[in-house]
């Protein structure tokens, strides 16, 4: 469902989509059922000439069943959601694959800036490449990113990766991603950070190895 709206572009995107679809599907099912029930009851017990409304306390077992049975079923659904969510959390947050390259991402009012390791693959050396508004990565490589803020809260959001991580001033927050499709995609800020928040956008260019090498060669 969600994958038809935003293409999944990282190794963990399908897992996250699955949980979102699961939650969405279950909510849609139960919500739909409840609303249908609601209107059916409205119609079934509508005002009729000469019929007096019945007073119910809500304690009658045959009426309480209408609440209890769905309640237990929904708890079962919740347990299933928790199970899958924990599994996905483990994959994204705990089971970190070996890292191929690093990226430093700095958020500020109102731009994303990026520090790439450059040709030597090491962060903090003279050949590092610094950019504003564009992040260059290579497809099928695992990147570890470090997030920093120069001022207030921001949130580094890459919809195609299903990645969204808050950026907190004073902290260096790490995470990873592994792009699976080449192309140019959106980066956005997902935490209200002031007047320019809505246009705090950047692009991520996921390149093939040849394109990436060409960019590296041209950037210095």
């Amino acid at each position, binding site marked *: 469902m969600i994958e038809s709206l935003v293409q999944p572009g990282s190794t963990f995107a399908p897992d996250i989509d699955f949980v979102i679809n699961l939650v969405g599907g279950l909510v849609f099912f139960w919500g739909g059922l409840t609303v249908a029930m609601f209107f059916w009851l409205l119609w079934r017990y509508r*005002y009729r000439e000469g019929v007096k409304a019945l007073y119910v306390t809500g304690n009658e077992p045959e009426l309480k069943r209408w609440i209890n049975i769905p309640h237990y079923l929904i708890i079962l659904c919740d347990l299933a959601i928790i199970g899958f969510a924990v599994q996905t959390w483990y994959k994204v947050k705990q089971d970190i694959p070996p890292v191929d390259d690093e990226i430093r991402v700095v958020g500020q009012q*109102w*731009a994303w800036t990026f520090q790439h390791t450059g040709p030597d693959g090491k962060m903090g050396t003279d050949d590092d490449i*610094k950019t*504003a508004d564009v992040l260059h990565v290579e497809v099928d490589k695992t990147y570890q990113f470090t997030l920093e803020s120069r001022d207030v809260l921001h949130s580094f959001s890459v919809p195609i990766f299903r990645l969204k991580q808050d950026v907190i001033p004073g902290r260096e927050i790490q995470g990873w991603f592994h792009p699976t499709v080449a192309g140019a995609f959106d980066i956005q800020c997902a935490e209200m950070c002031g*007047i*320019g928040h809505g246009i705090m956008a950047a692009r991520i260019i996921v390149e093939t190895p040849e394109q990436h090498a060409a960019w590296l060669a041209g950037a210095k």
Partner: protein
Amino acid sequence: MSNVASRWSVGWAAPILGLAIFGIVGACRGTTIPASARSADAVTPERGEVLYSNYCAQCHKADGHGQESVGAPSIAGLPQWYVKTQLMNFRQGIRGAHFDDIEGLRMRPMSLSLPAQEDVDAVSLYVGTMRPVAPAPSVQGGDAGHGSQLFTTCQACHGTDGKGNEAMGAPPLTVQPDWYLVRQLGKFKNGVRGADPRDVKGATMRPMAQGLADEQAMKDVVGHVMTLR
């Protein structure tokens, strides 16, 4: 009987209230920019003023004196041609798109929030009509005497009186705050401003900043500029 009727009306109140809230929110959104200011091709100072108070005043302030805490300089008194060039530079990422340009990266999205080219023209026109404010000096330790010697190189473009020269693309230096001027000199020197290959004017200014030995020299020359007001 009446009980049933009142239950019905409560049932309908919620969606109606919801729609009403939507309507009010929608109406408020429309009031951000008055319709009169929306008509395109109206490049007038009046329209510029409306745009300025909506998009610029919160940082540069209603009278254009700026706000040091967000790094926004006074811009009142800058000529229209210079305001426009800088806005275009910001919009195109020629200025304010460098990793280390913290303040420029803040100004760039603001320049992009002007919806159309006519808006850039109108707001530049308006800023050009604002009376200069020239905030009081705040940078300590500048030696204006030494600065006046350094300033001889600057005169060719910015003029002996520091009032700028449109033909050279050099702005006046007498309306901005001193902290801002020092900071810009640092940015030019370090390639944070004026290093973009498309920045033809900035490229003429860069070597001048590189000619200033250190931050002390920048403070000195700005100290002299402050005496020109």
